[in-house]
């Protein structure tokens, strides 16, 4: 996951590498996602998130639709 100065920089990066454009997030969405994903990582009782927990986290950050689908 990279960060870019503006939308056209994403387009140029994808074009140069012949990569299909993915999904763009605001830094605020990225921060919320990082908090939900990592806030417990240092705790002894940490465990991997369940599929349902990840789905709920993505949805809470507004990341829905086929790109964010975790199931087959």
């Amino acid at each position, binding site marked *: *996951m990279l*960060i*870019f100065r503006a939308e056209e*920089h994403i387009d140029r990066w994808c074009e140069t590498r012949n990569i299909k454009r993915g999904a763009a997030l605001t830094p605020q969405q990225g921060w919320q996602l990082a908090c939900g994903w*990592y806030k417990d990582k*240092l705790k002894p009782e940490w465990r991997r998130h369940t599929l349902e927990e990840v789905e709920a986290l993505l949805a809470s950050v507004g990341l829905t639709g086929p790109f964010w689908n*975790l199931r087959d």
Partner: protein
Amino acid sequence: MTQPADATDAFARDVRLYVFGEAANTGRVPQPPEIAAAMGRSQAEVEQAVRQLAAGRVMILAPNDGNIWAANPFCAVPSPFRVEARGKTYWGICIWDALGIAAALGTDAVIQTACGDCSEPMLLEIAAGKLKRSEGIIHFAVPAHHWWDNIGFT
């Protein structure tokens, strides 16, 4: 001698706590020889535990030598995602992990990075649990279902 699964799991947990504790406290991700010395166990035992943790997606191994590449969010090697926090320097393997370092540490942080396209410097700042300063747009190139197909690229 093969250990029972419970003992293996318990040791892997201890290795996890040591690795992440060291990464958080020092900014450095320890590697198997150092972990083995610190925990008084053989390097082979530690390497097995590290492989177990990697298989469980708790950390990521370097492709060729079995060293820890990232005890994510903490990257073992310098990267374009530098995080200054607690008076120390940390590295993330991507912008998500750079933000994740601040989230995991629960502390203020400054992220120094660069545009993936033009390499212009970019700065994000976390203060009091909030994103105080930011710029730009984050791009996920890989759909969520395929993140772990090639986590290095993701």
